[in-house]
């Protein structure tokens, strides 16, 4: 819809060329050719009511004509201000303009902003100062004008050309360009601004301006649309055009709005656009899903734990050792003197050497593993990216030294260990040979006590490692969910913690069960406390049966996982039904997507909350050029968002009917019969619930249509 709010029809001032004079016929021809739908007559320091009426009547069938005036203002500097009035106040405007310039020299007079405001504001006007266009308003005067008018949506900046219009509009300035016609013969060659939405009258234009800072179309802010097939019932298909703005579905209950929303959501998604949905009736189930651990992995890395698979393997394979029979000692003693040579071979009386895996041994072993990983990770790093040549050399040298040093310590331990083992084996072999050759029995290498101890220590090490791992601190991962008044920020908490005194059954795999896990831990503790018990073999056996029955081969099943809603301090919070709605809706609207489909977002919420919190979120998404599709019974949402398109569903005389329109032209048109039209405002008044502000806005639109 093309608009020209700076149009001269008379040469008034000395500087005005005769080309500004226009006959009614020429006016009609040029306005029609240029396809202008709204034109404001804004002659310099003058308003001619008679001419206005003639020109108005000339084009009234296809173009709105609004009264206006272009005034020379003396502020900080001199600049031009266009004032355009609501045509309903034409007589008042005419009188006020006349009063402003009475006794004044039209060519030289200038007025103050205050004079103009005091004279014309009550005529229901908009103000259009020249901006970056000579003579243009300076910032100080612009701020004064805004303060005086009190409603920024009534002030538009007139720019010098379309390129500037595009730039300023894209940056959110309320701006416009007008023809400022100097020669009517070439009027239709001018470039004109296009409104984003058609408006029927001055009031609707002001309503559009109130909603959006940018009322004109530019390349960037042009509304994209998609035509999708909506299905209010499985057997019914309706083509619906959705815009990158707010699209409202409203109407009585039982008219298929929910099904429409769902089908449009599916249709949008199948076009490859990312979509977010919120269906109020399903909020209970949706909220439950938020705290469901389905899909949450029992990940021990979250608590920085080791799987302890080797420890469980030690337990599974553990067998008690046997002591050396006393008889062996007797036999040795009995046969000792059977051979003089054997007697000389004192090595046959040698006992086993022992090797103890000390803490240092274990530390060196672990450090060697770390060093190997460090070397491997290091090789993948391009340190030349981050360090100077000298520093690179130093670092490489130090790392090499470290690795060599660790390897050396480990090597010493292993040599010590294996030399001991080798010695024992050698002595054993020597004894064997000596016994065979002399038909004697050598002294037993050990009573079996050392092997007994080593075996038990090995078991204790494994048990201790498992029990220590179970004491690792829990991990809590908080994910922001939303905000509740007076409760603050609310989170979903993913908790990972090992079995402990306050664990819940549902934290663990139900096929194993918390009781079985507790039995196993109890058994491990008993083993630890009585590591030298005589009946250790049966204890281990019992434990292994439990482990095998539950297929437990690592510490993973002992990691409990849970999800719950909590406040900022991590304390669990039980949200009421209404609060659940609020949180779910906030979550949906905060997700990044191309389209948002909301069905009855107002359910479970108070009117003031909806108006203060939900409506701004919806409007903000629309400003970001998202598709926002809402089915609602709430006036705050359906009316106060000033939707780009409204779809009204109703059921009358056994038939379902669909009407499409918007608040700016106050029309709802039957998609099956273009002659069947309804008033948007009337249907809103009848159908929608709540919201005083919304009620009055509906009334304003309704009354603006009828006046």
């Amino acid at each position, binding site marked *: 819809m093309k608009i020209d709010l700076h149009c001269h029809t008379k040469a008034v001032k000395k500087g005005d060329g005769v080309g500004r004079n226009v006959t009614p016929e020429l006016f009609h021809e040029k306005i029609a050719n240029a396809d202008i739908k709204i034109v404001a007559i804004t002659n310099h320091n003058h308003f001619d009511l008679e001419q206005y009426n003639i020109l108005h009547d000339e084009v009234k069938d296809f173009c709105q004509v609004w009264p206006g005036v272009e005034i020379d203002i003396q502020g900080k500097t001199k600049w031009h201000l266009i004032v355009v009035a609501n045509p309903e106040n034409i007589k008042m405007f005419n009188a006020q303009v006349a009063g402003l310039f009475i006794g004044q020299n039209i060519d030289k007079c200038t007025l103050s902003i205050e004079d103009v405001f005091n004279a014309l504001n009550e005529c229901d006007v908009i103000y259009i100062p020249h901006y970056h266009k000579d003579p243009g308003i300076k910032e100080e005067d612009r701020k004064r004008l805004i303060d005086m008018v009190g409603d920024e949506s009534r002030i538009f900046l007139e720019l010098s050309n379309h390129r500037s219009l595009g730039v300023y509009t894209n940056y959110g300035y309320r701006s416009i360009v007008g023809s400022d016609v100097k020669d009517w013969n070439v009027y239709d060659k001018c470039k004109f601004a296009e409104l984003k939405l058609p408006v029927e009258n001055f009031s609707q234009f002001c309503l559009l301006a109130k909603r959006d800072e940018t009322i004109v179309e530019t390349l960037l802010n042009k509304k994209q649309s998609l035509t999708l097939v909506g299905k209010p019932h499985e057997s019914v298909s309706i083509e619906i055009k959705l815009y990158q703005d707010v699209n409202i579905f409203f109407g009585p209950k039982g008219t298929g709005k929910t099904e429409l929303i769902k089908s449009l959501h599916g249709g949008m998604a199948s076009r490859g656009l990312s979509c977010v949905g919120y269906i109020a009736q399903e909020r209970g189930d949706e909220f439950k899903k938020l705290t469901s651990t389905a899909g949450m992995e029992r990940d021990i890395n979250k608590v920085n734990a080791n799987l302890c698979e080797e420890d469980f393997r030690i337990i599974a394979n553990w067998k008690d050792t046997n002591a*050396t029979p006393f008889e062996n000692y*007797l036999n040795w*003693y009995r046969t000792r003197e059977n051979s003089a040579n054997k007697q000389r071979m004192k090595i046959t009386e040698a006992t086993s050497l022992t090797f103890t895996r000390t803490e240092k041994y274990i530390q060196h072993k672990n450090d060697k593993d770390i060093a190997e990983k460090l070397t491997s990770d290091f090789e993948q790093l391009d340190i030349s990216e981050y360090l100077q040549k000298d520093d690179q050399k130093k670092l490489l040298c130090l790392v090499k030294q470290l690795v060599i040093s660790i390897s050396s310590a480990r090597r010493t331990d292993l040599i010590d260990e294996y030399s001991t083992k080798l010695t024992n084996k050698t002595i054993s072999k020597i004894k064997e040979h000596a016994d065979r050759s002399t038909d004697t029995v050598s*002294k037993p290498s*050990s009573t079996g*006590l050392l092997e*007994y*101890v080593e075996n038990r*220590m090995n078991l204790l090490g494994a048990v201790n490692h498992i029990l220590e791992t179970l004491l690792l601190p829990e991990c809590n991962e908080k994910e922001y969910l939303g905000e509740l008044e007076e409760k603050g920020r609310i989170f979903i908490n993913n908790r990972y913690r090992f079995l402990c005194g306050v664990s819940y059954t549902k934290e663990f795999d139900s096929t194993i069960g918390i009781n079985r896990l507790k039995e196993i831990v109890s058994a491990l503790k008993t083993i630890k406390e009585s590591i030298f*018990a005589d009946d250790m073999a049966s204890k281990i056996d019992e434990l292994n049966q439990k482990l095998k029955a539950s297929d437990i081969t690592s510490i993973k099943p002992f990691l409990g996982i849970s999800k719950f809603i909590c406040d900022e301090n991590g304390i669990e919070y039980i949200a009421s039904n209404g609060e659940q709605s609020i949180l779910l809706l906030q979550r949906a609207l905060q997700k990044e997507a191309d389209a948002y489909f909301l069905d009855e977002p107002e359910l479970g919420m108070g009117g003031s909350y909806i108006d203060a919190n939900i409506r701004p979120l919806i409007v903000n998404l629309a400003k970001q050029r998202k598709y926002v599709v809402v089915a609602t019974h709430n006036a705050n949402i359906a009316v106060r968002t000033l939707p780009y398109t409204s779809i009204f569903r109703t059921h009358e005389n056994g038939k379902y009917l669909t009407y499409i329109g918007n608040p700016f032209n106050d029309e709802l048109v039957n998609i099956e019969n273009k002659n069947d039209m309804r008033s948007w405002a009337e249907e809103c008044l009848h159908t929608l619930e709540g919201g005083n502000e919304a009620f009055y806005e509906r009334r304003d639109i309704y009354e603006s249509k009828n006046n």
Partner: protein
Amino acid sequence: MKRSMKEGISMNPRIIDVLLTTLGEDKDILRFYINKDAHIDIDLDSAACQTEIKKLFSEILNISINEDVEFSFKSEEGFPRDLYRDVCEQYIKDITRELNTSTIAIRQ
């Protein structure tokens, strides 16, 4: 009673008396007096004395966690078999040596 710097370890060793004796007519046993009221008998003539030996190991290791252990060996007056006496002396020496090494590992 002296205490070592490591808490709970008594520096006065626990003396476990060990007696080589006979039970009944001809059963040779090595009796370890764990405490005043309890003792463990190792049947020296049985090929299956390992169960008792393991019991013995269990008891003395539990004691050695907190106390140093020493064995005091003697044979009953008039015990007829010198071979058994000599072997048992040697056996006690070996157990003592192995126990000392084990104690270091246990207390770590």
